[in-house]
């Protein structure tokens, strides 16, 4: 009986195999003459944001039968590697998404195309100036911003009410200043010997973004303008990082990253406040029993600042006119549908769309949108990935209490300077000129 089954199984597999080969051929060989212009669209939207993006793509395809946008998602970390290598190998897609902080890395490769000549009647003035300007390099715009995604405060309203942190109407009142922030965190923390029962005022669910925001608030700089020197270990940055460590080690209002999954903790209602990206919103919305709201991050340093990112539509430099026009049409369409996109946890960067009643109903997005004028991107440098690796490592080591902020940032700075030195050496060997 087993042998019989095996035989049958083999024939079935063989059949499936053959039909698989056939289907490969059919899709590969059978392109008709009226085939729509194929636009490959790559991005890293692997979460619910991808579902939303697909809906927009589907709508575009329906309204434009002469164009077929085929979307592909790869998790961000892998995405950038793949895109880079595919681009160098001349296999890059027609349209792809780049974060503002990654633009310069890709500009150097030469496969991203400036879009200034395509703008035509696009309402450039409707875009937020700081977001749009951030795409400029050497006088040209290298991408069309599709959104703005800052971090912001998520807070548990139930826990706030329980701790009596309420306004005149008895509604939960989120902190705006340093003292309020520290005070609230203290009031909301309930330590217990049973770790499962403790409640935390604050938790670092995305520490690097939190720390970066604070460094910006403290007025920290990261590089000299000519990128010849890394300033990550400047006193402002050390002080900002020290503030973060103190919440864990001194105030004990935030759990050590050792023994917790802060984001899940917030979803479970055991963490009262956390700063995290607006893109995390869909994950919270799944948790129906959680009474949460969003708010701009408190101002802890001397100036307002918050870490933010923007996704940009970027166009492949090597494509013919037909594809180029189709790709641009798609980018414009997407921008016009920013509100659909905002549902996935994004802030539209078209000012007119933000004023619509539909956006006002997206309460968390609207709150986070208030930070748009002081959003701070990660350094826009060609070696952004190397920088972020070192930065994250420094933050992680410090918050875990393994090293002091100064030690961690010194080490990171030294590592980044090595990258800078390698690049300088490179340039010298190419041009004979010693500039980074």
């Amino acid at each position, binding site marked *: 009986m*087993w042998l019989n*089954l*095996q035989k049958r*199984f083999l024939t079935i*597999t063989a059949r*499936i*195999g053959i039909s*698989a*080969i056939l*289907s*490969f051929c059919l899709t590969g060989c059978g392109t008709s003459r009226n085939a729509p212009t194929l636009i*490959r669209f790559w991005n*890293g939207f*692997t*979460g*619910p944001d*991808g*579902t939303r993006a*697909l809906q927009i793509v*589907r709508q575009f395809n329906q309204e434009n039968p002469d164009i077929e946008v085929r979307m*592909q*998602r*790869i*998790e*961000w*970390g*892998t995405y950038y590697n*793949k895109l880079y290598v*595919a681009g160098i*190998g001349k*296999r890059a897609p027609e349209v792809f998404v780049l974060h503002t902080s990654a633009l310069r890395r890709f500009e150097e490769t030469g496969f991203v195309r400036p879009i200034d000549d395509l703008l035509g009647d696009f309402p450039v003035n409707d875009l937020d100036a700081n977001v749009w300007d951030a795409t400029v390099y050497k006088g040209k715009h290298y991408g069309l911003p599709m959104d703005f995604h800052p971090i912001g405060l998520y807070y548990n309203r139930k826990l706030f009410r329980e701790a009596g942190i309420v306004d005149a109407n008895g509604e939960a009142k989120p902190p705006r200043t340093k003292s309020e922030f520290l005070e609230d965190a203290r009031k909301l923390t309930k330590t217990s010997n049973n770790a499962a029962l403790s409640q935390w005022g604050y938790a670092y669910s*995305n520490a690097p973004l939190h720390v970066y925001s604070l460094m910006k608030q403290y007025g920290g700089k990261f590089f000299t303008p000519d990128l010849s020197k890394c300033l990550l270990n400047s006193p402002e940055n050390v002080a900002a990082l020290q503030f973060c460590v103190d919440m864990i080690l001194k105030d004990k209002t935030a759990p050590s990253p050792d023994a917790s999954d802060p*984001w*899940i903790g917030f*979803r*479970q209602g055991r963490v009262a406040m956390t700063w995290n*990206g607006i*893109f*995390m919103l869909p*994950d919270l919305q*799944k*948790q*129906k*029993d959680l009474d949460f709201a969003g708010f701009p991050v408190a101002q802890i340093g001397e100036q307002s600042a918050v870490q933010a990112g923007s996704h940009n539509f970027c166009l492949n430099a090597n494509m013919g006119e037909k594809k180029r026009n189709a790709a641009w049409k798609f980018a414009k369409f997407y921008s016009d549908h920013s509100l659909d996109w905002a549902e996935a946890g994004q802030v539209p960067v078209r000012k007119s769309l933000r004023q619509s009643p539909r956006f006002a109903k997206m309460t968390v997005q609207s709150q986070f949108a208030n930070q748009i004028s002081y959003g701070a991107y990660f350094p826009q440098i060609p070696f952004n990935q190397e920088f972020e690796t070192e930065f994250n490592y420094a933050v992680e080591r410090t918050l875990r209490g393994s090293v002091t902020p100064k030690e961690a940032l010194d080490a990171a700075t030294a590592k980044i300077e090595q990258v800078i030195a390698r690049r300088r050496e490179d340039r010298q060997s190419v041009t004979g000129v010693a500039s980074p």
Partner: protein
Amino acid sequence: MSLERTELVVGEKRSPFLTWIAQGIMIFLALLFLMPILLIFVTGFKADAEIVRFTGILPHAPTLANFERVLQTPEEFPVFRWLLNSIFISSSVTLLVLTVDSLAAYGLARLNLPGKKWVFGLIVGTLMVPGQILLVPVYLILNRLGWLDTPLALIVPAGAGAFGVFLLHQFFVGIPRELEEAAALDGCSRLKIYWHVVLPLSRPALATLGLFTFIGSWNDFIGPLVFLDSSEKYTLPVGVAIFQSSFYTEYGLTLAASVLCTLPILIVFLLFQRNIVKGIAMTGLKD
């Protein structure tokens, strides 16, 4: 046959009590090992909000929603496409490895080839080469061949591994010479001897190698991750990794996809698993 004997000895003088204890321990261990797999299957039926608050193994409110999402939105998750890709690639790799390796092993084990000791030594020596260190150069070679982002990138290099040649060589060496000589006297060519004498005798070894190769290829993660770009060309393991977002995991969807990814290979295994031990026992790995 050796497989039917040991039982006589072991357990012969043992009290039934001890045997029961031994069996009890084995059952406990086996359940422990199977538990994670059971959990994957059961938890695929839980909603995300329930998964995040673990309250027990069985779902309180079983739901098919995860499976529906995964199966009914082929645009988002082309699961069947990935399944076909996986089947196509793994079958091709298995076929290639079995063909090429058995031919080579036959030549090296049964034919009087000048200098074969050196060649075989070289091949066996590469058993020590960790596959991962070849990643970068193979990537650059595939790039030069223009095979990146095609199934070829996963199929052809898989035929270079030394394990199959080694395994089959050890098996072929043990086949009695007389059978071959009789066939040769009947005027059979070497190719015919290979096909009509050696291969039929080596079924268990071929099945073992085939199964290992198929599983290896099916579960290969880093290969498709590095060599493929387009999501419609992905295999299941890499496709499943898509469900992991950079920032958080959609556990329900991921687990449902994991179930779909695991089921086919489990069936293949259960159909063929009888051959494994027999095959290995007979392939002279003992030396």
